[in-house]
C-alpha cells in the first residue's frame, strides 16, 4: 500500500472567470486507500472528485490517474473512466431501462462483453449489494436505498480500480442510509480504492484511512480519522466538526 493511484499536482479550477473553486490542490491517494472528503457546501469537494473521471475539467496543474494524465485526449479520458466507478447523490439510474439493463449497458457497449457474460456479471454485483431479486424491475419502482445500491452495483460492473462516491446518502430517507453504508463498508473491506464525499462521520471513523477537510477550494487539514476527530489542528476544522457533531 504505497503506490500512488491518484495524483493531484497544483490543480486549479475556475467556474467562469470569477469563481476559483479549486486552489492549488496537491493530493496523493494510494492504491487501496479509503479517503473521506468533508467540508461545507461550496468548498469544492464534489468538484474535486468529479475531476478524477473528468466530469469536470481543470485548467491548471496535473491530474494523473493510474499513470494516465488527464487532458483533452479523449482516449485517455476513456481509459480512465473504465477504471473509475462513480456513485452520485441522485443515483442517476436510467429510468427507461430495467435494473439488469442498467448494469449490463456499459459492459456490453463500452467493453463489448457478450450479453450472457454481462448479465452474469451484473447478477453477481446485484447479489453483492443484496438486491438480486429486483433485477427485472424499473428503477423508479425501487426505494431510494435500493436505487443507490443498484447504482453501486452498476459502477462495480466495470470492475473499476477506483470508486468515487459523491454524497451517496444525502438524498436518502434516514431509514435507508444504513443499508447503503453497510454495502459501502463491505466494499471497503475488499481492497478497492475509495474516495468518498460524505458527512457520515460514523462511516469515516469505521473505514477511512484518511479524512480530508476542504474549505473554499483548499485542503485545510488531512489526518487519519482518530486524529482528525479527536485532535483537529485548524480552527476552521474545529468549527466545522462542532457544527456537524455538536448535538
Amino acid at each position, binding site marked *: 500500500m504505497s503506490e500512488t493511484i491518484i495524483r493531484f499536482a497544483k490543480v486549479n479550477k475556475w467556474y467562469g472567470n470569477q469563481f476559483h473553486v479549486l486552489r492549488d490542490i496537491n493530493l496523493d491517494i494510494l492504491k487501496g486507500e479509503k479517503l473521506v472528503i468533508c467540508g461545507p457546501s461550496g468548498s469544492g469537494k464534489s468538484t474535486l472528485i468529479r475531476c478524477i473521471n473528468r466530469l469536470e475539467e481543470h485548467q491548471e496543474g496535473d491530474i494523473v490517474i493510474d499513470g494516465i494524465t488527464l487532458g483533452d485526449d479523449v482516449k485517455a479520458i476513456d481509459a480512465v473512466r473504465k477504471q473509475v466507478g462513480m456513485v*452520485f447523490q441522485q443515483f442517476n439510474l*436510467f429510468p427507461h431501462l430495467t435494473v439488469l439493463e442498467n448494469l449490463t449497458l456499459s459492459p456490453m457497449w463500452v467493453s463489448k462483453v457478450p450479453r450472457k457474460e454481462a448479465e452474469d456479471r451484473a447478477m453477481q454485483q446485484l447479489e453483492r449489494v443484496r438486491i438480486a431479486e429486483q433485477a427485472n424491475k*424499473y428503477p423508479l419502482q425501487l426505494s431510494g436505498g435500493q436505487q443507490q445500491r443498484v447504482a453501486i452495483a452498476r459502477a462495480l460492473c466495470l470492475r473499476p480500480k477506483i470508486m468515487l462516491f459523491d454524497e451517496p446518502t444525502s438524498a436518502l430517507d434516514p431509514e435507508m442510509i444504513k443499508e447503503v453504508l453497510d454495502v459501502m463498508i463491505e466494499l471497503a473491506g475488499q481492497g478497492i480504492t475509495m474516495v468518498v464525499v460524505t458527512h457520515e462521520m460514523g462511516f469515516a471513523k469505521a473505514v477511512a484511512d484518511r479524512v480530508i477537510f476542504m474549505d473554499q477550494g483548499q485542503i485545510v487539514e488531512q489526518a487519519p480519522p482518530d486524529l482528525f476527530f479527536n485532535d483537529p489542528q485548524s480552527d476552521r476544522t474545529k468549527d466545522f466538526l462542532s457544527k456537524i457533531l455538536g448535538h
Partner: protein
Amino acid sequence: MTGLTRYTSEVFAPVAARNAPRNEQGALATLRRHLFGSRFSTITTIVLMAIFLQTLPDFIAWALIHPVWTPDAALCKQAMGEGACWGVIAEKYRVIIFGYYPHAEHWRPLVATLLLLGLLVASCTRALWSQWLVLLWVIVMVAVFVILRGGWFGLSLVDTDRWGGLPLTVLLATLSIVAAFPLSVIVALGRRSNMPAISAVCTVYIELIRGVPLISVLFMASFMFPLLMPTGTKIDVLLRVFIGITLFAAAYMAEVIRGGLQAIPKGQVEAAQSLGMSYWQTQRKIVLPQALAMVVPGVMNNFIGIFKDTSLVTIVSLYELTGALGLALNSDADWRPFKLEAYLFITLIYFAGCYAMSRYSLWIEAQLSRSKAR
C-alpha cells in the same frame, strides 16, 4: 418540556387498510352531476343542446334522408338545397382518388396505395419490429415506384407529374415523415452541440425555414431551384417537392425534439459518461429514448401536419388528393355545384388517416409509460 402536553391519547392500534368507498350512484346520477352539476355546466349543456338540435336534424335530413345516390346530374340539380348529391362521388371518385393517372391503368396506383398502407400497418405492429422491417421498406418502396412509374415489365411509362390523388398523398406523407424524423433528431442534437459551427448551422437552418411559409418553400423547390442549377440538370419535380416538405417539417420537429432533450437531467449524461460511454452511445442509449418518449404527442402533431400539408403541393401542379378533387370538378360544369359533397368525402379520408395516427400515438405513449409505472 414545560408548556408542552404529551399526546398519547390511547394505546396505539394499527388501522388495517381498506378499499376506497365505491361510487354507487349509477349512470344517471353521474350524468346529472357532469351535465348539470353547477350553474355554469347547466348553461353550457343547454346552449350546446340547442345548437345541436338546430343543426343536427337538418344535416341528417340533407345527408341521409333526401340525398341523391345515383350519378345523375339532373336529379342532383333538382334536389339542391334539399338533399346532398352523393352521386358526384359515384361519378368522379376515380379522378378524385387517382388524379391525372391514365384511366386504364388505375389498378396500378390502387396496388401501390395498398402496398404502402400495408407497409405502414406492418411498421406499426410491435410483433414485426425487427431489422427485417428495413428490408421490407426497401422492397415495398422499390415496388411502389416500379408499379407507379412503369417503363419496366411491360408496364407503360407514367411520369411522376401525372401521379396524383390518394397514392401521391400517402407516398409524399410517408416519405417526408420517414426522412424528416431522423433529420430533425440530428438537427436537434446539432443545435445543442458544444461545437459552435455545428450549433450555428443548425440554428440558422431552423430559423430560416421557420421564417418562411411552406408554400414559399414549395415554390422555391419547384420554380427557383431549377434556375439555380446548371442548365441541363433535371431533378424530378416530385423529388424536389419531397425534399422541400422534408426540410420544412424537420425544422419544426427539431424544436419539439430539442424540448425533450432539454428535459433530460444532466445527471443522466454524467452517469453515462462515468460509465465510459461515448457521446453517440449516450445519445442513442440514454438521452434519445427518454427525450423522444416525452415528445411523442408533439412529434405526432408534426406527423399529422405533414400528412395534411401535402395538400399544398397542388400549387406546384402535383395533384394529390385535394388537388385531384379540383381537377375532377372544376372543369365540369354539370358537377361543379356539388363540391361540398366531394369535400366531405375527402374529409373522411383525411380524418381516417389523422385519427389513426392520433390513436397510434396514444398507444405508443401507453407502451412507453410502462417503465414509469410504480
